């Protein structure tokens, strides 16, 4: 159950702070297990209070697939449930340092949908780093609406990187110009940029990569994967700690492979079926009383010296 590795790259071993963090996390029952089991959904508040006791590191929140404009669920719209998610974030005793949104901000790339989402998510009062989903690029100019808004200070079709407390974050776009019969796609230009972005970084730099479509193949028949993700992973392989955060599939799926941890977040708007359990990956219209248990957000806690980031998924229920 430990999230530590004996071969902790920084060689801290089990010092006092380390032990304390273990206790805190064990106390809240939320450890990222190496066997990759589904983490227990728990009260974000208790996790946040635990995090508060940690004196170093930081916390950020992942919001995904808010699909503002979607209104097919019974009784609530995507706007309502995003509002509930934001209320949860605001109720945290410790504010996250920033948020990331892993795409499908809107349902139809419309200006008023982007406006709504930005206003609601921005009301938390922390920086928000966005990457696009395919729903954010279906305007007449196929992406202009998104890039006009979020493309400032980014490369190519909206990819970028930034650093926070020694952790290197990379936001990718794998939803542009999807090819017939294909999966998500990064493309040669973005991969060349990624190679350059990583080139001079020490292998001990913790890396967080976030993009909309999963960067590993979860279910090819539904397009749940990225055609050229192996090339990106090859570039990331030498790093001691890589966390890959995605959305798109509106459910939690996770995998640990060597130093890489892959995780997909719930949507705040509507659930989708588990791979292969329905004829198509369309929205699941569920009874109103069940819906909030299937929607949620992900909190990520980084502690200096601890190799694996702790991820906590909590529902809106």
């Amino acid at each position, binding site marked *: 159950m430990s999230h530590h590795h004996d071969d902790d790259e920084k060689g801290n071993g089990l010092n006092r702070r380390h032990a304390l963090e273990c206790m805190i996390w064990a106390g809240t029952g939320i450890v990222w297990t190496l066997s990759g089991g589904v983490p227990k959904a728990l009260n974000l508040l208790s996790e946040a209070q635990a995090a508060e006791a940690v004196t170093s590191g930081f916390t950020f929140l992942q919001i995904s697939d808010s699909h503002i404009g979607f209104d*097919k669920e019974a009784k609530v719209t995507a706007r309502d449930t995003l509002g509930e998610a934001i209320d949860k974030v605001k109720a945290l005793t410790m504010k996250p340092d920033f948020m990331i949104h892993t795409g499908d901000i809107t349902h*139809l*790339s419309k200006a008023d949908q982007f406006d709504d989402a930005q206003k609601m998510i921005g009301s938390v009062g922390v920086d928000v780093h966005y990457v696009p989903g395919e729903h954010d690029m279906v305007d007449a100019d196929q992406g202009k609406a998104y890039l006009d808004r979020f493309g400032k200070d980014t490369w190519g079709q909206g990819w970028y990187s930034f650093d926070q407390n020694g952790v290197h974050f990379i936001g990718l776009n794998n939803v542009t110009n999807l*090819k017939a019969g294909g*999966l998500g796609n990064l493309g040669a230009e973005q991969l060349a940029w990624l190679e350059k972005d990583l080139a001079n970084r020490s292998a001990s730099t913790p890396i967080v990569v976030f993009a909309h479509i999963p960067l590993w193949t979860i279910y090819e*028949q*539904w397009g749940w994967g990225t055609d050229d993700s192996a090339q990106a992973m090859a570039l990331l392989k030498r790093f001691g700690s890589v966390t890959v955060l995605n959305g798109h599939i509106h459910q939690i799926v996770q995998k640990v492979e060597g130093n890489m941890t892959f995780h997909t977040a719930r949507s705040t708007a509507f659930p989708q079926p588990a791979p292969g359990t329905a004829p*198509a990956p*369309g929205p699941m*219209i569920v009874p109103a009383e069940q819906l909030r248990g299937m929607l949620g957000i992900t909190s990520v806690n980084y502690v200096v010296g601890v190799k694996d980031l702790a991820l906590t998924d909590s529902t809106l229920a």
Partner: protein
Amino acid sequence: MMTLLRPRMHPLLAFSLATALVTLVSFTPAFAADVKVSITNFKFDPEVVTAAVGDKVIFTNADDTIHSVVGDDGSFHSDGLDTNDTYTYTVTKAGTIAYHCGLHPFMKGQIVVK
């Protein structure tokens, strides 16, 4: 070959050009048809349709989520189509036009133009 034949073919060519012009002006509009494609359960239905130059292919999204229609060669694309939205593609040349959904590229279809 064309150069060699041209003097002999010229009257015929002129005749067929005239015929084509008459056909284009007086007949094509009368035969232009609407070809319907429904987008249902993440499939184009039917996946292959036959059409003639001048026909309109009308796509209607019957799903709970959005789809789009994008030419594989990038020459045309719809906006995102919400439930019950339609997109009309007017056929302008013969051949096979392959297209897919820009959001779910595993969804593929063809317009075979005679």
